[in-house]
């Protein structure tokens, strides 16, 4: 009996040490800028995500049901006939308004960045990351819709983030509020460069901005286009706090994103031509060198 217990203990210690070593090894080799999924992960995420997607569907249908029917039934109790007609008409008008608003919103989304030579994929947010430490959104579009890893994600208002993880039909966006996401940015008015990094639930900070740069509250911060992820000129946010210390060479800047993440429903993924842009840049450089010679 004692021998059996000792053997179980030894097994337990072996597995604990082995799994701990494997976890530490994997953690030290972990890529924090993007996550390439395996075929199994791809399959599993595609299998589980419809459940998350169905929750969004049920929520929309339920709120529609309550807004369109239950509320109207309550109203019609006062003056059955007339109220019913009014309620029906209101219901129709409400529906048309919703459709009209949605059309306007989607149109704005699709028209946004017309000057950018990129394909746009419209996607709906279906879930948030399971850990509140990470500001990550899951959308209902994936590889099959033409999305690529590290594609930029925007709304008509400004920058949301980039594609961190991708499966055939779903993708995870790491937002600019996440501390793992860094955007090379510039202040629109002064053209000063810095790095925008996620900070808290609704704020980002701008790092490495020289202390001598005359930035002020309300200055708009844009993506600089450096770093090969985000196109140039996307709105990131407005400066809400500037702290200059008497020592040190940089200043501490806090930014409020222009995108309201708490009410975000749809986003646009910019895809396709990152390599083409790079090729064009190389070609332009080659041409310039050719002209000089």
């Amino acid at each position, binding site marked *: 009996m004692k021998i059996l217990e000792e053997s179980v203990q030894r097994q337990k210690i072996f597995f604990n040490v082995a*799994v*701990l070593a494997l976890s530490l090894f*994997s953690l030290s080799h972990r890529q924090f800028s993007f996550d390439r999924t395996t075929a199994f992960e791809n399959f599993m995420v595609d299998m589980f995500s419809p459940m998350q*997607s169905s929750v969004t569907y049920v929520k929309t249908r339920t709120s529609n049901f309550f807004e369109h029917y239950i509320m109207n039934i309550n109203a019609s109790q006062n003056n059955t006939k007339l109220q019913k007609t009014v309620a029906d008409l209101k219901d129709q008008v409400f529906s048309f308004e919703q459709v009209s608003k949605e059309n306007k919103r989607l149109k704005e989304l699709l028209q946004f960045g017309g000057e950018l030579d990129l394909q746009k994929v419209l996607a709906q947010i279906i879930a948030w990351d399971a850990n*509140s*430490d990470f500001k990550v959104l899951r959308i209902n579009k994936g590889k099959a819709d033409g999305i690529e890893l590290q594609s930029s994600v925007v709304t008509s208002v400004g920058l949301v983030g980039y594609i961190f993880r991708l499966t055939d039909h779903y993708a995870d966006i790491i937002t600019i509020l996440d501390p*793992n996401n860094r955007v090379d940015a510039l202040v629109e008015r002064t053209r000063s460069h810095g790095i925008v990094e996620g900070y808290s639930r609704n704020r980002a900070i701008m790092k490495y901005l020289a202390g001598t740069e005359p930035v002020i509250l309300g200055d708009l911060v844009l993506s600089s286009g450096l770093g090969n992820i985000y196109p140039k000129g996307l709105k990131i946010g407005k400066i809400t706090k500037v702290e200059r210390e008497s020592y040190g060479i940089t200043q501490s800047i806090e930014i409020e994103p222009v995108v309201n993440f708490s009410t975000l429903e749809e986003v646009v993924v910019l895809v396709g031509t990152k390599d083409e842009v790079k090729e064009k840049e190389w070609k332009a450089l080659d041409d310039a060198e050719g002209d000089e010679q």
Partner: protein
Amino acid sequence: MKNEIKHQLIPLGLTIIILVLFEVVSTAVFPALGVKNYRLPFNILIVLYLGFKVESPFIAIHIIVLQYFHSLFSIEGWEMGTISGILICMIIGYLKELLHFSSAFITILLTQLFQVFWFIILAAMLYMKMTDFSLILDKFYRFIPESIFISLCAPVVFLILDRLWGVSSKEGMLGEEV
């Protein structure tokens, strides 16, 4: 509980299904209801259950599998949760003789206590990676309500898991009868 892995595959599979359902609730249902800043870490609750009640040499394997499925819903990855989980289970192993789940209150209290240990281990790892204490502080403010909710769920979730893992009924929902 039989010690062979083959006897633990079915309970583990069912536990994964429960974890997936909890993750869907946490990532889709709660945000749909407007709770977007807090996420309930049901994976921690399930790992704590394994540490508290399942006697098996394969606990580390179970934890890595559960954390892997959790990582499908989070970009956190499986590594940090696995490390924290195994360390917590080792601590529980040493304190097992002192832990008696004699009432729902004790179950809630012990779950809360070990979530604090989990937080400390995870915060230490995050600090080594980020070297920014303000992020840990921000995490701590979210940890308080999240962990309290999870602790309150513990007696009921443990009851379900007791059935799945065939843990003796005398250790029932509120713990063993003293």
